[in-house]
């Protein structure tokens, strides 16, 4: 029970800090929006194309701003050596890891809530249930992204080349959920039945569970000294 308390404590601390400082929210949103705008100009996307382009474009927007969020999550702990406060506490460090994943996912969900409607508006796509399900599918895959990303970010933020290293490690590792996200949302936007893409959803769920478990086991080694 106290393990979950620690997870909640860490996530709550991150959320509270963000609410006060609003350091991240604006940068994540603006960055993701910028990517949409670039796509808008680069590909001249129109209504029927949104079903084709939308999934990939949204995934790119979220993963790139996701990298910003992951870097921020640990930079804030490295300042003032705050992470030492966490490391010297009598807690299971994997609880800290899960707390960080949780807060990152919540931030990404918040970005989604704003960005998916904005994308629909920018590309003249109707607001309907399928759009909402698309957001949910993206979130499912972003959990996996945050799971692996938090593990890697714990390590890369301790280096000088962190901006390059985190994407280099994370994007190849995240290939399965990138493909799953694009396929799932693509089928959803095109209105196809669940059976057509069910296997992708199960892949996402499996990926999320497997790598959350692996990261829980490995996190101590990532953050140790």
């Amino acid at each position, binding site marked *: 029970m106290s393990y979950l*308390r*620690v997870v909640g404590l860490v996530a709550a*601390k991150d959320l509270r800090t963000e609410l006060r400082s609003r350091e991240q929210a604006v940068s994540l949103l603006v960055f993701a929006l910028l990517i949409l705008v670039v796509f808008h100009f680069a590909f001249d996307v129109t209504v029927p194309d949104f079903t084709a382009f939308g999934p990939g474009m949204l995934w790119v927007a979220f993963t790139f701003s996701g990298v910003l969020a992951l870097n921020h999550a640990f930079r804030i702990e490295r300042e003032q050596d705050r992470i030492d*406060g966490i490391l010297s506490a*009598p*807690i299971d460090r994997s609880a800290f890891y899960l707390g960080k994943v949780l807060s990152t996912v919540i931030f990404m969900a918040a970005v989604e809530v704003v960005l998916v409607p904005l994308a629909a508006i920018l590309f003249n796509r109707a607001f309907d249930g399928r759009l909402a399900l698309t957001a949910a599918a993206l979130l499912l895959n972003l959990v996996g992204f945050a799971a692996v990303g938090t593990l890697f970010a714990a390590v890369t933020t301790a280096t000088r080349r962190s901006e390059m290293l985190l994407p280099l490690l994370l994007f190849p590792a995240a290939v399965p959920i990138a493909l799953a996200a694009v396929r799932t949302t693509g089928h959803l936007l095109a209105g196809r039945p669940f059976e057509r893409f069910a296997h992708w959803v199960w892949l996402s769920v499996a990926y999320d569970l497997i790598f959350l478990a692996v990261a829980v086991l490995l996190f101590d080694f990532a953050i140790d*000294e």
Partner: protein
Amino acid sequence: MTGGASAPAVRLARVVRHYGGVAALDGVNLTVAAGESILLLGANGAGKTTLLRVLALLARPTAGDYLLFGEPTRRGGDRLEQRRRLGFLAHQSWLYEHLTAEENLRFHAGLHGLRPDGAAIEAALDAVGLPGRRADPVRTYSRGMQQRLALARVLLHRPDLLLLDEPFTGLDREGAGRLRALLKRHAAGRTLILATHDVAEALPLATRVVVLAGGRLVADRPTAGLTVAGVEALDRQGSPAPAAAGPWAAGPPTA
């Protein structure tokens, strides 16, 4: 109780710690009995911070043994229990500047499995001379206040071993004096290891002085009978020889 009442609080045997190929600690032997107050001296780069980090279980020794409260700190010891009994007031405050004092204290207390109520928080802040400041964000605090808040954070879980790394840095005379008075009060009944250059402030707190130089302890004696000047001489003893050549060998040029 673990380790038996007679077990020393801290026992380091031939502890070595490497960082990037350099031995920051190169064979440290130190035994500290429960209730002792150690003043840890040494030049910058001598390894004081590394030693404190090893003691605080933030860094693992590359070689050697560290027994904390009689229990091994490598495999086999109950790390969580050991961390519970430690308190580390580091060079940095570990405080989240956008959160209030109360939120910071609750967070760290929560990590220690504690759920202090409002009265307990207020009492903790009172004890370090910060009454009525619980709802203020930490970024409005001065350096001295942040240090005292950090001390409140450390004391909340009532640690048996207090480790302090240069706590007087950045404090003016008055602030340093206040901190010293607080430490004197709260270190009673606890084991204390304090690293600092501010010998004048720290000496009244200590029962024993150890000097670290080049990753090894080069002096270790009780403070009884030692003056501030004498201890400062010990501190310098640990300093490396000044560069033979070079324009600054005799100190900075006067205008």
